[in-house]
């Protein structure tokens, strides 16, 4: 029963996708969207029913076996249904369904409406494969397929060159990370002879040396950094905002980008043996969090703010899972899915209302025009800033607390986290003020209006989740931790602090948030300050990291490739090949003059031959 439901959860969106692929063009507009939404919602329903046992506490992990996939690796197409994957499935399908719904409104009138839902449904399928995989190979399949969908959806408006380029960039950068993942897979297989999570995790302590575990862990981190846009592979995510906003919400905020976090959590058993790798995860996460938060401060494009914010928040999650606070990491993943999706959808609503305008300096004062959007986004703003009792507070606080609790050098990471929290509050507030408060700075001809209900209803649903989502795991009531415990059986979790420490830390982070909000509110309350100085430009362009990459990899790489192709290959190798041919022919030409045409030369040649033969034969005897 469970098996069927789990399979159905994947197959429903897949079926929707396939149907839409073939008939999507012929379906009238909302129908395609409705079909897409319903299949995902159906998937959610199935997952919810299947997960019900887990909630009641009676559920057991189930393996859903489809078929033998790659015999030589002992890999089957199998789904592993346990608490962690169940939670992820619910988040993915739940948030996914809401965003699908939202998209019906957002994509209204688009020429390829049906196609959009095809891709979106395919994405849900892929994401479910990722989270439900019960072995590394299957996970890699999902991992890649979400990358594909991300590519397709970022460059959905491919007529725009920047969109097409952004899609490609996302895929390619992800692939760089994938190399790490692949290497990790190779290491896993060579050590265990299998890809099955269960076998690997059970035997990891016995089989893996610290070195091997570290290698696997670091390689997994490379993969995760690609997918989850961590340093140094984060560059694709800001560009990915070229995609339609629901896509940004679904893929580049709520679900896909968190796959890296999920993976680290999933493979906790390996990181456990490799403290160095785990530490690296945390450090990368912290660095990314801080780095992206600073960059977010100077963005003027509303979606880019959110993009950097996402990178930053993902950094938090990495910090959490790196510190073995897996529950906290996943918790933050979940809450972040709610409020960041909400933020994106809200931003989408704003952009929709502003007729496609994304520059915050040309907004302002929208709260009156778009009250529902404003209200919901404000909730998300507070949630992400870490204001209790909204969702973001609880999860962020748990991560920071756990990190702090580990003591030693981890305390530094905690510090970074707090500073980031401050910055987060600052830039989010900046965004709020620039967008919704102050005087309108709209371009002429822009008439902001509230979005239709099909868009605002998901906003409201997400707002609700952002409010209550944090309550599933508070220091007072750790139900999520209990829920997930069986999934992390093999892993030793870091504990969150308790008592006064916990309280103090919470107060520190709330204080940081309030300071951030205060500073930003003060700065942006009644004006748009001039932010064109060098420092602003520097961080506004993300410290020119992307430009440096462009120069180093794209430009130099292209030059090098051109040299290889048109010099080395065409002249060098092929030149040698053609040269041998030409030389042979030329040798023939050089020999021609010997053939003088004179009888006496020919006679001389005969005598030469005769003398040579004579010499040879005489040398064989008779002398």
């Amino acid at each position, binding site marked *: 029963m469970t098996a069927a439901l789990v399979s159905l959860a994947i197959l429903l969106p897949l079926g929707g996708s396939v149907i839409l692929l073939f008939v999507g063009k012929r379906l009238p507009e909302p129908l395609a969207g409705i079909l897409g939404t319903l299949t995902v919602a159906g998937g959610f329903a199935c997952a919810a029913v299947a997960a019900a046992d887990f909630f009641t506490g009676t559920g057991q992990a189930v393996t859903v076996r489809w*078929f033998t*996939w*790659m*015999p*030589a*690796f002992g890999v089957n*197409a199998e789904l592993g249904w346990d608490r962690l994957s169940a939670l992820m499935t619910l988040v993915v399908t739940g948030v996914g369904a809401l965003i699908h719904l939202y998209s019906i409104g957002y994509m209204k009138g688009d020429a390829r409406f049906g196609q959009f839902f095809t891709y979106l449904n395919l994405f849900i399928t892929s994401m479910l494969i990722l989270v439900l995989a019960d072995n590394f*190979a299957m996970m*890699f*399949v999902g*991992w*890649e*397929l979400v990358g*594909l969908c991300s*590519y397709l959806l970022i*460059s959905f408006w*491919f*007529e*725009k*060159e920047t*969109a*097409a*380029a952004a899609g*490609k960039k996302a*895929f*390619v950068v992800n*692939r760089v990370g*994938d*190399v790490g993942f*692949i*290497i990790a*897979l*190779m*290491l896993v*297989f*060579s*050590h*265990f*002879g*299998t890809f099955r999570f269960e076998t690997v995790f059970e035997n990891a302590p016995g*089989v*893996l*040396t*610290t*070195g*091997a575990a*570290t290698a696997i862990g670091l390689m997994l981190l490379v993969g995760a950094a690609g997918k989850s846009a961590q340093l140094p592979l984060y560059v694709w995510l800001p560009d990915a905002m070229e995609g339609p906003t629901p896509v940004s919400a679904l893929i580049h905020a709520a679900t896909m980008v968190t796959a890296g976090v999920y993976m680290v959590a999933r493979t906790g058993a390996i990181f456990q043996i490799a403290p*160095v790798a785990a530490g690296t995860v945390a450090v990368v996460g912290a660095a990314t969090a801080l780095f992206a938060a600073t960059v977010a401060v100077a963005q003027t494009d509303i979606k880019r703010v959110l993009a950097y914010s996402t990178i930053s928040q993902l950094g938090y999650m990495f910090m959490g899972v790196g510190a073995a606070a897996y529950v906290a990491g996943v918790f933050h993943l979940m809450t972040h899915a709610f409020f960041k999706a909400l933020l994106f959808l809200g931003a989408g609503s704003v952009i929709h209302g502003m007729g496609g305008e994304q520059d915050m300096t040309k907004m302002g004062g929208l709260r009156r025009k778009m009250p529902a959007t404003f209200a919901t986004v404000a909730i998300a703003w507070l949630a992400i800033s870490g204001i209790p009792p909204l969702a973001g507070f609880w999860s962020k606080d748990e991560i920071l607390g756990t990190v702090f609790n580990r003591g030693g050098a981890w305390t530094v990471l905690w510090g970074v986290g707090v500073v980031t929290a401050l910055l987060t509050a600052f830039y989010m507030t900046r965004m709020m003020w620039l967008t919704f408060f102050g005087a309108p700075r709209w371009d002429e001809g822009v008439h902001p209006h509230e979005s239709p209900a099909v868009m605002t209803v998901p906003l409201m649903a997400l707002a609700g989740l952002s409010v209550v989502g944090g309550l599933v795991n508070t220091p007072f009531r750790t139900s999520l931790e209990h829920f997930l415990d069986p999934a992390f059986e093999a892993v030793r979790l870091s504990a969150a602090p308790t008592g006064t420490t916990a309280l103090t830390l919470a107060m520190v982070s709330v204080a940081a948030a309030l300071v951030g909000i205060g500073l930003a509110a003060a700065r942006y309350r009644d004006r748009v300050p001039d932010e064109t100085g060098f420092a602003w430009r520097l961080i506004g362009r993300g410290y020119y990291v992307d430009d440096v990459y462009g120069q180093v990899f794209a430009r130099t*790489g*292209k030059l*090098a*490739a051109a040299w*290889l*192709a*048109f010099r080395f290959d065409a002249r060098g*190798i*092929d030149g040698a*090949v*053609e040269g041998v*041919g030409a030389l042979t022919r030329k040798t023939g030409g050089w020999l021609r003059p010997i053939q003088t045409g004179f009888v006496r030369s020919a006679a001389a040649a005969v005598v030469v031959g005769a003398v040579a033969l004579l010499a040879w034969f005489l040398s064989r005897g008779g002398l």
Partner: protein
Amino acid sequence: MSFPILSVIIGLPVAGALVVLTLRRTELVLPVAVASALVTFGATVWLLVEFEVGEAGFQFVEQATWYKPWGVGWHLGVDGISLLLVVLTGLLFPIALAASTSVTHRPREYAAAMLLLEAGILGVFLSLDLLVFFVFWEVMLVPMYFIIGIWGGERRVHAAVKFFLYTALGSALMFAGILALGFLGGGDAGPTFDFVKLLDANLSHTAQLWLFGAFGLSFAIKVPLFPFHTWLPDAHVEAPTAGSVILAGILLKLGAYGLIRFCLSLFPEASVQLVPLLAVLAVIGIIYGAIVAIVQTDVKRLVAYSSVSHLGFVVLGIFALTTQGLQGGVLQMVNHGLTTGALFLLVGMIYERRHTREIGQFGGLATVMPRYAGIFLFVAFASIGLPGLNGFIGEFFVLVGSFLSLPAYAIVAAFGVVLAAVYLLWAYQRMFTGPITVEENRGLRDLGVRETLILAPLIVLILFLGIYPKPALDRIQPSVDQILQRIEQTTTYVVPDLGTTGFEVPGP
């Protein structure tokens, strides 16, 4: 002896060619040729169906001695390694022929050449007598030479001659090698060219090395392995669409097939010893082909270089000498045949419309030709190795399989995966996305029913093998394992053990 199905498979295209040549009405030529190729395909499918899964040895064996003093005879057989390639050949030919409607110059000769080419290729895959194998190997060059040289592009003559001579140079040494092997392997009983008998030949280490060199060079040129690849882009660019499809889809596999069938089986010691060399060349090919592909401005050239890269994977897999690597190598041959075949078909279709293959001449095609763009992207992703599509399975097997024995190479090779995405997606971006920049492109019509139908079988197989490769792998595995067993028995090589010992990765 049971029904000589293998001889029939080789004979059918020949008969088809003869029939085609006698046709008086030009418009019948292509249908008849396609029909003939389809009948051949049917026969190969029958082979596939009747093939005993799980058997490692040769099946459907036909054997007859032709000339005892030379030890030469008609010996055919098919095993898991050749089976899929035979079916692939059977599949691609009708498709390539059906896609040849634009050939109006000497259509009879064209169709006949294609069918003879098919016979030659099938002969190469099926022969178990080295001399006969060599006959097919060489004979195949002739129709291909004509196909490029007569029905090709502007610099067709140069390309055709280069193709012919380069490959002939390789095979010349193999020819000497085959003769020498026949004598060395035959011993006192007189020479023999029977592959199965030669398996028992007790070749000295030096002899193995030399023979491996002679065979290997020939195969390396055919594959083509870096740095013997430069004939390939030229040949591809100039060849007509069907020629490119066959060239990339099947002809290149012959080299890899030869490496498995002959080099690994007959010269195990040399193979084991030369693994580093071959693996280095394969890895260089993977990376180099991909990098060079990035900057190509001609789509066909780009795909040609991508073949260099992909075939590098195949060779790496083969010389990993692990069951996964070898299986991956064989499967990747099939995969590459399907995807690259499809890519060349697609390029041909656009070429028929626009008479150019310059990437710069396109841009924004997805707007006017959505179906074309979609299929192109689909195939491109298969080529990139996206899971769920066939390319992934092959690459995955190769990479993980080769990591077991050649970890460093596998890691470098893994970067080829990134580069594949770069060159294909960049090409896609330049051709299909953005605004339409060239006016002529505005009126292009999307793929028609015929063209879609031509591509459909490839697409279906790309998906099928990507999702459920087991049927293919089940047939490959026993034969591959047998080869590995042989290597283990005759050399000191041991296939790396999985899971128990592992190997040390230096820790921090």
